């Protein structure tokens, strides 16, 4: 407004301080520019994820088959529901946050405090949900084997339904035990946790069950995974090197190795943002209760942390799309 008009009358105003470029206070503007840089960081991650997906477009796992758990519904195939619920929780906590900002504009201290508290609770519920999601992802459901070339092979029955390793692996005497401190004289850490079944058990079990087939990572024309014939399956079993149960940073039973890495990294980084957001919200919540902003006659600080909280919601909207929908 006045800042661009060069008359003697406004000159004093322009250079005497207290001027707000682009009509935003310093704190708010810097919060916005922090968000811009953070948004670019997340876009970098998501773009890298997109790059890898396009690079391995024929063998990327199908999200609906991986994320299909819902609390208290064991063995029920429930794709998307849980993550949709998480999305609603986060959007709703965004709503309570913006209501707190709105109440702050009207200097209603109690209302601000109540809405802030609801936002914090929403944040904790979201974090808990994400932990549960991670637990399922890490634990896995069916198990798979990996070939020498790094290909994941899963097991299906004649109808194409997935079969868990435990349902068919032969019971052979275990030849290897997990090395732990109390068993060793000279302790060396064991590189990887021993899976519940050895490669031999899985191979023997597969041979003993003529109904079983192997499902490879590669997509068919119908965008489902290729199921090998019994002969091809038996041939493929010669290349098996590892038994894979669940997911870690090295290999996962769902398919391509990068899939779990990107999942852990991007949802983990987002979860970290949610966690810091909750912590900052708690700080501001106590400040509201103590009347700090009442004394300052401005609840702008609530608005600034609100921006951060909405940003976290914004990122989740994109993570939701690119990990679960697309």
């Amino acid at each position: 407004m006045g800042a661009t008009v060069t008359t003697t009358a406004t000159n004093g105003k322009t250079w005497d301080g207290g001027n707000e470029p682009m009509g935003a206070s310093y704190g708010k503007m810097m919060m916005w520019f922090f968000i811009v840089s953070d948004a670019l960081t997340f876009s970098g991650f998501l773009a890298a994820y997109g790059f890898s997906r396009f690079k391995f477009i024929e063998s990327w796992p199908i999200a609906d088959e991986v994320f299909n758990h819902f609390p208290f519904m064991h063995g029920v195939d429930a794709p998307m529901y849980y993550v949709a619920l998480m999305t609603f929780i986060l959007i709703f906590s965004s709503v309570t946050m913006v209501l707190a900002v709105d109440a702050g504009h009207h200097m209603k201290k109690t209302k601000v405090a109540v809405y802030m508290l609801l936002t914090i609770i929403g944040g904790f519920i979201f974090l808990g949900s994400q932990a549960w999601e991670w637990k399922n992802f890490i634990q896995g459901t069916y198990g798979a084997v990996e070939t020498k070339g790094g290909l994941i092979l899963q097991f299906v029955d004649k109808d194409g339904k997935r079969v868990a390793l435990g349902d068919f692996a032969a019971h052979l005497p275990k030849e290897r035990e997990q090395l732990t401190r109390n068993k060793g004289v000279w302790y060396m850490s064991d590189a990887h946790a021993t899976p519940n079944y050895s490669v031999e058990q899985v191979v023997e079990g597969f041979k003993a069950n003529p109904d079983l087939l192997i499902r490879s990572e590669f997509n068919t024309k119908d965008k489902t995974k290729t199921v090998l014939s019994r002969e091809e399956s038996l041939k493929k079993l010669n290349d098996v090197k590892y038994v894979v149960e669940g997911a870690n940073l090295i290999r996962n039973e769902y398919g391509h190795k990068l899939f779990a890495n990107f999942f852990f990294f991007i949802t983990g980084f987002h979860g970290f943002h949610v966690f810091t957001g909750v912590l900052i919200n708690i700080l501001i919540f106590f400040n509201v209760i103590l009347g700090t902003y009442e004394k300052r006659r401005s609840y702008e600080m609530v608005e600034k942390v609100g921006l951060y909280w909405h940003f976290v919601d914004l990122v989740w909207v994109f993570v939701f799309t690119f990990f679960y929908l697309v």
Partner: protein
Amino acid sequence: MAHTAHESNTKRIWVVFGILSVITIIEVILGIDKPKALYMTNLLSMNLLNWIFIILTVVKAYYIMWAFMHLEGEKGSFRWSIVGPLVFLIIYLVFILLVEGNYIFDVFKNSDYRWIF
């Protein structure tokens, strides 16, 4: 912030919440159902269903940034100094990386190099 009049925005907030919820529900229904007419198509290396998801996501992002983060109440210069760089840089980065990823896929699939398995 003091110079803009702060009439209550509560109604607007709930309307936007409604819009976001409806969009999410549509996304979830489409994601579970995966209608073949959309899923089995291909437009610029992606199926129509994915394009719908991405467009709906951008619409959601618009509502979150404009209504919840209150960009609609900021000055135009401030608004576009935030949104402009983001839109330009993200489209640029994504375009380059996805084209490159697709190219590498083609190289491994069609050339003399082979996946070792």
